[in-house]
């Protein structure tokens, strides 16, 4: 882990952005393979991203070799995925992220802009001292990629449903 004083947020965000694209691509390929396994009658239990990605490894090694390898070689993938899921579901985190997500992730933006803004919003909000300490958020690129992927998959509207009026 990088020391706090040496931490370069912009560099970190850039790494998260690149990693998120890789994870997202891997996930998309894996999702196709998952559907293909199901259509062949193979029963796949569990519903986590990790499971889907592992399912994808079987069928798309050649296509997504590089990104799959980067997922494959991380032994603590499951642990990060669980932590990301916990943070994702936390109402306080939602309250923290949603106003900015709703304000900045607009439907008529190109996908690349949505990704970049989402990375900026999520990293800035969660690496701020208070939430970072309260939720023990580490400056871990893969953890942030997985968290952003979860929000992406859910969609801003569904993730930020509110009943505060």
């Amino acid at each position, binding site marked *: 882990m990088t020391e706090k004083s040496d931490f370069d*947020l*912009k*560099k970190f*965000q*850039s790494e998260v*952005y*690149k990693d998120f694209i890789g994870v997202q691509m891997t996930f998309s390929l894996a999702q196709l393979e998952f559907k293909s396994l199901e259509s062949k009658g193979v029963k796949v239990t569990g519903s986590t991203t990790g499971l889907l990605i592992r399912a994808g490894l079987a069928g798309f090694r050649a296509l997504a070799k590089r990104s799959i390898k980067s997922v494959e070689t991380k032994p603590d993938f499951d642990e990060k995925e669980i932590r990301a899921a916990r943070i994702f579901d936390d109402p306080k985190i939602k309250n923290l992220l949603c*106003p900015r997500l*709703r*304000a*900045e992730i*607009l439907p*008529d*933006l*190109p*996908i*690349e*802009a949505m990704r*970049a*803004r989402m*990375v*900026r919003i999520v990293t800035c909000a969660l690496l701020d001292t208070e939430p970072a300490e309260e939720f023990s958020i580490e400056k871990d690129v893969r953890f942030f990629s997985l968290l952003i992927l979860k929000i992406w998959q859910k969609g801003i509207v569904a993730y*930020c449903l*509110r009943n*505060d*009026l």
Partner: protein
Amino acid sequence: MHNTKFDLKDFQSSVIKSHATLMSQLSTAGLRSDAEPSGSRTNTNAGFIKRCILKQLKSLSRDFAQRLVESEAFAEREAKARELISDPRIHSILCPLLTAKISDDLFEEAMAIEVILILTSSLTSKRVAKELSIETDANLFARMAHEILKQGTEKYCPATPTESSDEVIDDFETSDLAREIAEYSDAIVRDPTDAETFHGRGLAHYDKGDYDAALSDFFRATELDSTYGAAYYDRGRVHNMLDNSDLAISDMSKAIELNPEDPIAYLGRAMIRQYREEYELALADYSKSIELNPDDAEAYYNRALCYADIGNSGASLADYDRAILIDPKDANAYYSRGSVYFRQNDLDRAIADYSKAIEIDPQDEETLYWRGVTYYNQQEYGLAIADVSRAIDLKSDFADAVCQRAHVFRDMKYYDLAVDDYDRVISLEPENSEAYYGRAISQYYTHDYVSAIEDSSTAIKLEPNVAEGYVVRARVYCETGQKELAKADELKATELGGEITTPCN
């Protein structure tokens, strides 16, 4: 320009990809400062043959990238991009948005994307593309973004000095007038019976804005010479400045009586009558003035204004044409004729006239504002922002211009910038219902429903008989499941003539 239906979102995506490819090419060719040093990523665990192959591949791709970046087409595009971004018109379109949206704390990819969004949303309209010869070519836009990023937005858009030199000029003029008044006063001491000297000092007081002193001197002049028409005329002007229009007309009439062939006196009386909304009498005086001096552009200009006041656009335009023919350097005539075209919804002609007025007087914030409004009505958002931002630079408390820019930002979906500008309008004019209503729309689109209801309610409170506030609030109520309230607002909006495009069900 756009033969098929232009899809901005698709184009933006293409430019972002093209920019990423450009970065990669420059990096591979070793033309970026952050390019990886040769061999830095060689996998030391790989076998000898694999390492050789990797090295060979890398060398091949570097050669390819180098050939590409050294190609003629590449250089041409680079030159074109540089030429475009240095065009002052493009500069004025881009800078208000670049300075507002691009901050140093954005990471590299995000900054490039945001710059591309600004470039593409501001420079792809038909008018901009045609007038500034910009092709909607993804590679060209990527190159432009690269050039701006290379310079840095702070260098590309340096802060413009807002201090005006008007005050210095005013100081000079004031000291000149003071000297003039002193000289007249000396002359009056030497000969207190000369009407012309009193008249001269009165004019200097008038120019200085000291109307009481001017009035006193003009009175003295007419006392000394009761046939002094010019003194009556100028006394009439002072009465008019002091809001005594009856006395002003009486003095102007006396000046006409003393000199019935003086076109200036008719012109003066006409202007006062126009101000009093006595349009027929005013038109008669303007016409007499023109009859006596057919080459007076000012008379045509003022009669045109008078015709515009009574809704006779045709006669008004004819007089503006004549005024411009006599004095082609009169910015006011172009501005006013542009306003007639604007009211007639002849927006192209309005823009042509406003542009001519701006060419003559580039510091006139009113004309810049109105051209911005006209561009906005044509959905030429980049050009609109450039103009209203310039108007705001010239007059920082120009609430209408700030409000207009907020509308443009809102329609360009830069809701954060729109809200900032609406905030600024509300701080300048706390009773400005249009700003509350506009801010409510921006908040609605960013799903800040609590604030949207609050602001639309304030707009309704300030202007209870304007439909827009009810329309927005109805939409927010509907979106948040408060259907009864939504329906009540929809009903009220319809009663007031508002249009409900998607009723709440």
